[in-house]
């Protein structure tokens, strides 16, 4: 029993270390909002990081690349809306998302 507990703890610690190092590493309780937010942030950062894709978007929207880049980064703050209300409020409005 004791050994299993230690294993579990080690796995847990390893996961936490990964989560700290690589943002977006999932865990068993990843919520839909967390996942969406993370994927959206990845997408925006990828657009910003690939010059051709960024100019493609800038060209279509007829805005300077620099401006589109800043806009994309700003969108990373809250790409999938605000987080769902915490557990105590969940009973009332949790089903919405």
């Amino acid at each position: 029993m004791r050994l299993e507990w230690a294993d579990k703890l080690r796995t847990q610690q390893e996961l936490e270390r990964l989560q700290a190092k690589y943002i977006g590493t999932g865990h068993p309780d990843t919520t839909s909002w967390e996942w969406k937010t993370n994927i959206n942030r990845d997408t925006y950062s990828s657009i910003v990081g690939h010059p051709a894709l960024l100019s493609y978007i800038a060209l279509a929207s007829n805005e300077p690349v620099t401006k589109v880049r800043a806009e994309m980064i700003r969108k990373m703050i809250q790409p999938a809306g605000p987080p769902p209300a915490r557990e105590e409020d969940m009973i009332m409005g949790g089903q919405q998302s």
Partner: protein
Amino acid sequence: MATTSNMFLYSLTIQPPTTISQALLGQFSGTKEQQIITASGSRLTLLQPDPRQGKVNTILSQDVFGIIRAIASFRLAGSHKDYIILATDSGRIAIIEYLPKTNRFNRIHLETFGKSGVRRVVPGQYLAADPKGRACLIASLEKNKLVYVLNRNAQAELTISSPLEAHKPGVLVLSLVALDVGYANPVFAALELDYTEADQDPTGQAGQEPEAQLVYYELDLGLNHVVRKWSDAVDPTSSLLFQVPGGSDGPSGVLVCGEENVTYRHSNQEAFRVPIPRRRGPTEDPQRKRTIVSGVMHKLKGSAGAFFFLLQTEDGDLFKVTLDMVEDDNGNPTGEVKRLKIKYFDTIPIATSLCILKSGFLFVASEFGNHSLYQFEKLGDDDEELEFSSEEFPTDSRAAYNPVYFQPRPLENLTLVESIDSMNPQIDCKVANLTGEDAPQIYSVCGNGARSSFRMLKHGLEVSEIVASELPGTPAAVWTTKLTKYDEYDAYIVLSFTNATLVLSIGETVEEVSDSGFLTTVPTLAVQQLGEEGLIQVHPKGIRHIVQGRVNEWPAPQHRSIVAAATNENQVVIALSSGEIVYFEMDADGSLAEYDEKKEMSGTVTSLSLGRVPEGLRRSSFLAVGCDDCTVRILSLDPESTLEMKSIQALTAAPASLSIMSMEDSFGGTTLYLHIGLHSGVYLRTVLDEVTGELTDTRQKFLGPKPTKLFQVSVQGRPCVLALNSRPWLGYTDPITKGFVMTPLSYVDLEYGWNFSSEQCLEGMVGIHANFLRIFTIEKLGDNMIQKSIPLTYTPKRLVKHPEQPYFYTIEADNNTLPPELRAQLLAQSNTNGDAAILPPEEFGYPKARNRWASCISIVDPVSDEPSVLNRVDLDNNEAAVSAAVVSFASQDGESFLIVGTGKDMILSPRQFSEGYIHVYRFHDDGRDLEFIHKTKIEEPPMALIPFQGRLLAGIGKTLRIYDLGLKQLLRKAQAEIAPQLIVSLQTQGNRIVVGDVQQGITYAVYKPESNKLLAWADDTINRWTTCTAMVDYESVAGGDKFGNVWILRAPERASQESDEPGSEIQLVHAKSYLHGAPNRTALMAHFYTQDLPTSITKTNLVVGGQDVLLWSGIQGTVGVLIPFVSREDVDFFQSLESHMRAEDPPLAGRDHLIYRGYYVPVKGVIDGDLCERFALLANDKKQMIAGELDRSVREIERKISDIRTRSAF
């Protein structure tokens, strides 16, 4: 290899990307000369501005096979040379130096810090180097920042430390610069957004109003660690930082640029804030706020505090920003800031980078469109412009203030010196042969807004004509000659007619010379300046040797005439009609001595060549003889073995012309070549061994249908071969790659050519075209694509060609732009006073208006003498064109119509619109004019239109629909929901339709005429964000996607057959859907990451007699081809060469080549020709090694590499 594909392609770039994502100024050669390093896509290019000529020359360009994300330069204290730091997608930091001696980039350091690829938390997005060259910071978009300490060791070599971390989770970086702190500890300033709070706040409040922070990171050189030294909230709209000079030059700190403000910030200074002036004008929205999008800081020589900024807004307006400092009693600046000032400077195209050169030039790397070089006329110091000072404005970003205005005006402080062609962004591209030349041209639409253009791209060298004068008859040949060995310039032009010779003198005016000593009653075969002061004229009946007016005539033997001659400074060889060869050499006393023996050849001699006398020697030791029995023989001219045969080569046709000349080679030396022009039009180049006279390594190219004539000429001091066929060609050694290239000249066809040198024209050529004598020069080698550009009105979206006539139709649309009717309305309203001068939109852009569209259709005539836009049809009603096609309707007896799809009130993201339309236009005046017939309202803007069996096939959202032309509108004939998201491209052959979806890749559909049904029967296995497609054959389709991949998909054979069987619709309708898709899946045949975003792909051929290739165009201006391999042997060879190249010439920035080309999907069936072509640039020992491994000679490998390119591409 595991990937056994039965389709293999060779990928080549025929025009590298012309975008510049960043440009840096520095002394990269280690001399005082300033140079510019640019990053364009995956290419690193070194430019040399030439202040005397006002030009920018490319010195070196290298593909690093990785996405260059940021570059920075630094200089170690006490050094004169700037090093370059590269931040790419390799997960490594690379430090590069330029070696001027070998003209190469050399990697000094390569340190791995993270995963490869462009990722959110892997550093590489931002890069900043300390101005004193002591450290650099490389940061990711989120969280991670690494500081490397740069130093030098005892051997004065550059060292780099292990990285110091300055990570903070939950933080996004908007901008990063190094602070100028003199010799204090290096400090980096970052503009950061923190999202941790937004992630915790369910009310969404924190996410709505994120706070921007200016954060200083200090590297403590003593303790060797990085601390977050200072941070303060700044205007939340801020997005850009600029370094302010520090140390002894200024107050240090940064300029923070946000929406309508520029604020000076520093940890120990007060904030100073100026607003960005808004444009005044009748069509300008007075409420619109500007932001700074780029800028540059420049320090002037001399006094402290003498520096200024040029900051550019999204309109392209440059503002000069200066800082005033508090002065002490002696009038010296104290380092305390007093005020910030801003004033309008000039308006130039929007730049990604601005570089101010010491020589008074401004290099503008444009975000879109041509780059430019400007010269400073003045610095806007004492002009009438209003200056706004921070004293009049609050420092708090939330406080109210009165906006300020300025009046834009034409350039006053700058003058445009050179506009450098750039195809970025390239939006669509077509290949067609409209000029009737033997090779087709590439037509593409590029640019954005009012600076967009239609471009014609032609393979060829630009020629500038100096003289074209008419002659009394049609000469057969022309020569130029000096009078003595010591003359600098040519004195005579000698023209040979069928029965006469004309000698002209070169001078102020060209006049006939009567006392030249030349025999003018006969045609001439050769002219040569011989020995010190002699002249030689070879004519059919003899050789005339003229020395100081005295004439010696050597008559040809009785009943025989001279048919061919070759001469050089010391030797003369003639061939007689009897097939004998007579050799003369100049004696010590200057007279011609005949060699006793004549050599008899087996056939009639058609051509001879001697080659020039090598430096320091008395004679050229080889004579090449071409005979009509399809052979070339090499004879020795050494005194011991005169006229002995050294070697012989059989040819496919009789040689028409020969030329022995030595040229630069890729080994770093020169090689002697024998150039052969055949009667069949083929040109051959063979290596002539300087010792044995053996002929090896033959390369060939078909130049045209006529016999190829060859002449040795000189361009930029390099010996080149001028080859004349149905058009003139120039063979030369590329100045950068050192590879031999044969490029057509963009000039009239010539009958004969020769070198020409005079006082006015140092290095030219003279040629005969019909009865015209033409003198011309070639100024630039290396750039072998000629561009012609026609301005368009708005950002082009698509390009279609008239089915028969040489006209193109472009659809153009600009978002957020005031349409012309509203512009006119506003102008009419304000026209009460006279100040409403309309500024040209090419320089000032169109006035903006939120959610308005300006759109038009242009008719372009690219091939007339003055290529231009013939006509323009403006769209009104806030409609914008999104797609176009030319369709010939069977119901109208096959008459062709231009069909244009539009959208009304479109909002791009998230996709919104109110209506869609399909417009129909009739061609008038052979397509030079359009008549609007009617428009049909549909539910969505149609993103794809093509002709289909005499009707129109339209992709409308997810729906595929067939329309016929009716009197009042288009008539719906058949429809089906085919694509999962949005149809963006359509291709068709027979009843088959290939549908490209914006996200979900390709779907194969079939039209069943019996039951009038459209049915999908195969689709894709993975998501492909398709941008363009082209059918390669009936089963396969090639395409490109938004992430920069090019791929080929093939439909399963059985399903393909079944889909076409008559009556199979019942099967298809009831077929079981496979994994929520169509019943069958396509197979991937080839996949390749190109880095650039493909915008069009076509199957075409590019050279005469060449095979079909896939040509794709990229948004950054790239034009690339995929050449199919014919034999498995070649595939094996190139595959192993490619793997050796990966090992021996690893990419400069440390990206693994195989992983780079397989960025999203593992590379399949494509060999990277750009990597293989770098073989020529390897060191000789590496070449030998690879050649050994491949069991071939180095020359053989180089020949194979050049063959595969020349056979199907430029």
